[in-house]
């Protein structure tokens, strides 16, 4: 059976009523097979597919008629008759529409293709919006889940900072309105399954999976009793990890797995798609805090969620947590003075950061679709001009107006549906493209993005609404043209009026889009010109996590890698510059202690080896850099300019003694500041430089997560393989991760800005092209309509420039109106983008002027072409044409 015959078989089975199929399907299929064979024989595969397409009207006819016959048997006579008439009319409309489109293949192609683009862009962006913002979290009864966090006196009311173990257990045991659990991210090196690999995972604190409310796919969840340090070591795997590592072998439950050198019993597998608190997440392990650590109040790393108890609301929970916060303020003033507890709906906290960005994109694609519709309405109006006589004849022959309008709407609905089918295909590929970008996959819940039923429904609705929108203008206009028989081809002023309105709105929408895109592009270009504070040329980085404390590892690895030809400097840091705040601790001046009841503020720190500053190109401003003499016995630290400005505004920081951490839990006992270095924008290029403390690795030699930075003579990639084999020979079971140049590290910080600018820029470009084509179309039509008038003017001695000016002036008037309205709209709408912009105001005059300029030039050109054509009108021919 050939593919076409199989396709026909499927069509038969799905479209035709069973009654018909029982009697004829087999025979019909046999006949079709012969038709197929003969078509294939004459014109190959193309012929076969054409033959299949030719079958569609016949199939539709059987489908409609046979169903109707079935129904008429049962239905009362009058309704049956009416229904029969309606179905007949529908069938007529449909076949008429298809015939009409077949007669104008170019028109049909342009219409369907532009619609497919418009609907495709909407489908793709909507599938992102749908998964990220609209679908409830894949947790048990997600509406009753909240996120909790600490909030300082001066922080924003939506701040949700991590809390300490002791505070966490205080909250958990005191709350009645909430069942509280927490988590922190962990990573583990899996050994015994091929190459050692580092897996991302989550540590469950206080029964996380239980509160999340999801049943395991296999085995059981981790419960609170597993979190006792004396309990056996257990682990729960994600479905993905189970599939990847064990090939979905169900017998792994109860067996052990080596993670970070510890054998853990696999007790459960979570269902497919569950990756809370965020993908990727391969496993969950119990936290196993000992008694001392449970009482710790100065290590803030626990993210907290809660499930509202029956009868509790978020308000009652807030009231209760307020009481708890007051009590902690009283009982532990040193740690909790002024600390409040925030509660927000969980979904809100996961997606609120990207909501605005996604809404802007959704708005942009909606605009593209609106412009597409306006353009199509214009095309249809032009076509309607040509069909004016045909319609008038039909009206004269007794077709009623309603029927004609319906006919025209059927035609546009058919176009829209074809466009919708194309749109789903375009949307699928567009989504694939989107998901290939790192930024998209970095969106919260990105792993849930798919073209699901809801997205399909959206695409279908978008198509139908689009069809009604672009179809209604010509239908309304045509239905009123009863005098068309007399008028000949000149058309009425009414049509031109409507076309102008459409083009003006296209232009206005294009201006708004282009302004938005312009602002984002400006913002992106300013962002990429920001000095990150580091030098990136010839620097390569990678990271690894030691499985056991090896104070000798870093110095020895640095020595060996330094000996590789082409390497200038090697350094190790707790985390790379520009990748975020990473670690923080209370900053305490020993020379100027704070009053007992004031909680010090936390500052970011990085643990580095002495060569770090040279390796990343951070300049020394005052004092000296770190040396190998700065060790645990005699610690010294370096700070950056921002920190110096914050704590020592009118003093010399050099030589001042400080410590980091809580009084009874210090990172180091006391150390002098020996140097001040340049700022780096670690919190992101769009943020102010972060105050930063640099602590020698020799002072904190047990630091396990190490990032290497290698400065080379030129070609960094050739150095990597040598470095890799050196590391492998030293710590064979430790995977090397994230091999990137420092250039890539820095540009990752601008990636989200580039992503939105590129997307919006693309949409805006499409919009402008369509709007300009719209201007061109309207003026060409105008010239055609006024051929006779222009001919007379020329015959009466009007100069060609005068005629050209006439047409161009009309074009520019339309453009001016469109651009004007658009700028006003943009002024209002870009306010919404304020938080997405860096260093650009939403009303940036340069952008607004530039957008207006671009559209004037483009539309000016578009009106010049028809104007030239107007001057070539031969007066004699123009007059004879009447």
């Amino acid at each position: 059976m050939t593919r076409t015959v199989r396709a026909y078989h499927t069509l038969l089975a799905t479209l035709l009523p069973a009654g018909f199929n029982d009697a004829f399907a087999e025979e019909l299929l046999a006949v079709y097979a012969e038709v197929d064979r003969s078509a294939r024989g004459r014109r190959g595969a193309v012929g076969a597919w054409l033959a299949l397409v030719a079958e569609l009207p016949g199939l539709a006819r059987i489908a409609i008629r046979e169903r109707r016959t079935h129904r008429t048997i049962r239905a009362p006579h009058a309704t049956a008759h009416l229904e029969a008439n309606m179905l007949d009319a529908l069938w007529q409309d449909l076949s008429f529409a298809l015939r009409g489109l077949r007669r104008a293949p170019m028109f049909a192609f342009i219409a369907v293709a532009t619609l497919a683009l418009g609907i495709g862009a909407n489908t793709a962006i909507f599938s992102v919006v749908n998964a990220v913002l609209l679908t409830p979290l894949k947790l048990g009864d997600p509406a009753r889940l909240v996120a909790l966090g600490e909030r300082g006196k001066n922080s924003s009311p939506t701040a949700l900072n991590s809390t300490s173990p002791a505070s966490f257990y205080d909250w958990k045991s005191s709350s009645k309105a909430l069942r509280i659990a927490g988590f922190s991210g962990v990573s583990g090196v899996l050994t015994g399954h091929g190459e050692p690999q580092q897996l991302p995972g989550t540590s469950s604190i206080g029964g996380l999976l239980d509160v999340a409310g999801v049943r395991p796919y296999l085995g059981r969840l981790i419960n609170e009793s597993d979190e006792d340090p004396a309990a056996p070591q257990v682990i729960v795997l994600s479905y993905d990890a189970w599939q990847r590592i064990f090939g979905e072998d169900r017998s792994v439950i109860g067996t052990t797995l080596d993670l970070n050198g510890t054998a853990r019993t696999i007790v459960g597998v979570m269902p497919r798609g569950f990756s809370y608190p965020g993908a990727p997440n391969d496993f969950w392990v119990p936290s196993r805090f000992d008694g001392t650590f449970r009482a710790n109040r100065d290590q803030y790393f626990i993210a907290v969620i809660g499930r509202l108890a029956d009868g509790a609301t978020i308000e009652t929970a807030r009231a209760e947590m307020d009481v708890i916060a007051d009590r902690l303020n009283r009982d532990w003033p040193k740690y909790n003075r002024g600390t409040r507890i925030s509660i927000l709906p969980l979904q809100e906290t996961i997606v609120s950061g990207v909501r605005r960005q996604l809404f802007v994109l959704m708005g942009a694609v909606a605009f593209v679709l609106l412009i597409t519709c306006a353009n199509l309405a214009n095309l249809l109006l032009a076509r309607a001009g040509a069909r004016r006589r045909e319609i008038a004849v039909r009206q004269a022959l007794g077709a009623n107006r309603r029927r004609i309008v319906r006919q025209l709407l059927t035609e546009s609905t058919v176009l829209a549906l074809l466009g919708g089918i194309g749109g789903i295909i375009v949307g699928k590929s567009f989504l694939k493209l989107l998901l290939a970008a790192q930024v998209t996959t970095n969106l919260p819940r990105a792993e849930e993005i798919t073209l699901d039923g809801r997205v399909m429904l959206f695409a279908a609705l978008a198509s139908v609404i689009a069809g009604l929108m672009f179809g209604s203008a010509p239908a309304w206009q045509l239905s009123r043209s009863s005098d068309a028989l007399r008028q000949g081809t000149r058309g009425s002023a009414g049509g031109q009026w409507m076309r102008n309105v459409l083009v003006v709105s296209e232009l206005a929408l294009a201006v708004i889009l282009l302004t938005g895109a312009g602002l984002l592009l400006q913002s992106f270009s300013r962002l990429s010109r920001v000095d990150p504070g580091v030098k990136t040329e010839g620097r390569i980085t990678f990271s690894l996590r030691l499985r056991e404390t090896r104070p000798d590892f870093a110095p020895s690895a640095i020595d060996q890698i330094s000996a590789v030809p082409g390497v200038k400097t090697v350094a190790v840091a707790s985390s790379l510059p520009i990748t975020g705040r990473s670690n923080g601790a209370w900053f305490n001046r020993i020379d100027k202690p704070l009053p007992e009841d004031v909680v010090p503020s936390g500052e970011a720190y990085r643990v580095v080896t002495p060569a770090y500053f040279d390796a990343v190109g951070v300049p020394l401003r005052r004092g000296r850099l770190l040396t190998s003499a700065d060790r645990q016995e005699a610690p010294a630290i370096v700070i950056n300019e921002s920190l110096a400005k914050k704590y020592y505004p009118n003093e010399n920081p050099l030589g001042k003694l400080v410590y980091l951490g809580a009084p009874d839990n210090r990172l180091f006992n006391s150390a002098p500041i020996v140097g001040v270095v340049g700022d780096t924008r670690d919190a992101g290029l769009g943020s102010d430089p972060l105050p930063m403390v640099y602590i020698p690795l020799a002072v904190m030699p047990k630091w396990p997560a190490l990032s290497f930075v290698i400065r080379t003579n030129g070609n960094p990639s050739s150095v990597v393989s040598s470095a890799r084999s050196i590391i492998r020979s030293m710590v064979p079971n430790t995977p090397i991760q994230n091999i990137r140049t420092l250039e890539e590290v820095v540009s990752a910080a601008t990636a989200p800005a580039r992503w939105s600018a590129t997307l919006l820029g693309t949409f805006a470009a499409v919009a402008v092209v369509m709007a300009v084509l719209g201007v061109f179309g309207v003026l060409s039509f105008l010239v055609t309509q006024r051929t006779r008038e222009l001919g007379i003017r020329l015959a009466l001695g009007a100069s060609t420039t005068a005629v050209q000016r006439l047409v161009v002036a009309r074009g520019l008037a339309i453009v001016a109106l469109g651009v004007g309205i658009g700028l006003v709209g943009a002024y209002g709408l870009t306010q919404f983008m304020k938080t997405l912009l860096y260093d650009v105001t939403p009303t940036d005059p340069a952008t607004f002027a530039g957008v207006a300029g671009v559209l004037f030039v483009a539309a000016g050109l578009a009106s010049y072409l028809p104007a030239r054509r107007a001057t070539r009108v031969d007066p004699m021919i123009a007059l004879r044409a009447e």
Partner: protein
Amino acid sequence: MPTDPLSTQVFHILLSLVDDDLHGYAIIQDVAERTGGEVKLTASTLYAAIKRLLDAGWIEETTSRRRTSDDPRRRYYRLTAAGRQGARAEAERLERLAALARAKRLIPARR
């Protein structure tokens, strides 16, 4: 079956069956041949018509097969008396129309 004018396709199907019982694909070929490819039946339109003609009793399935080697799925159709009457009525209607047109000298008179 309606007494209204027949559709072109239905009329041609009836014409094909006037002097021979045919199976489905043979009807498609016969119509294409007779009209020089001007009327092309698709399998679906053919069976849409066959169903209605069967329901109206204008054609019927023959029980005897032509050749024993034939595809067993093939069914042959024969014009019934009613069908023959209907086809004839349509031909006459067309002739009357043509005569009217001739009377108006729209088309040349028959030689």
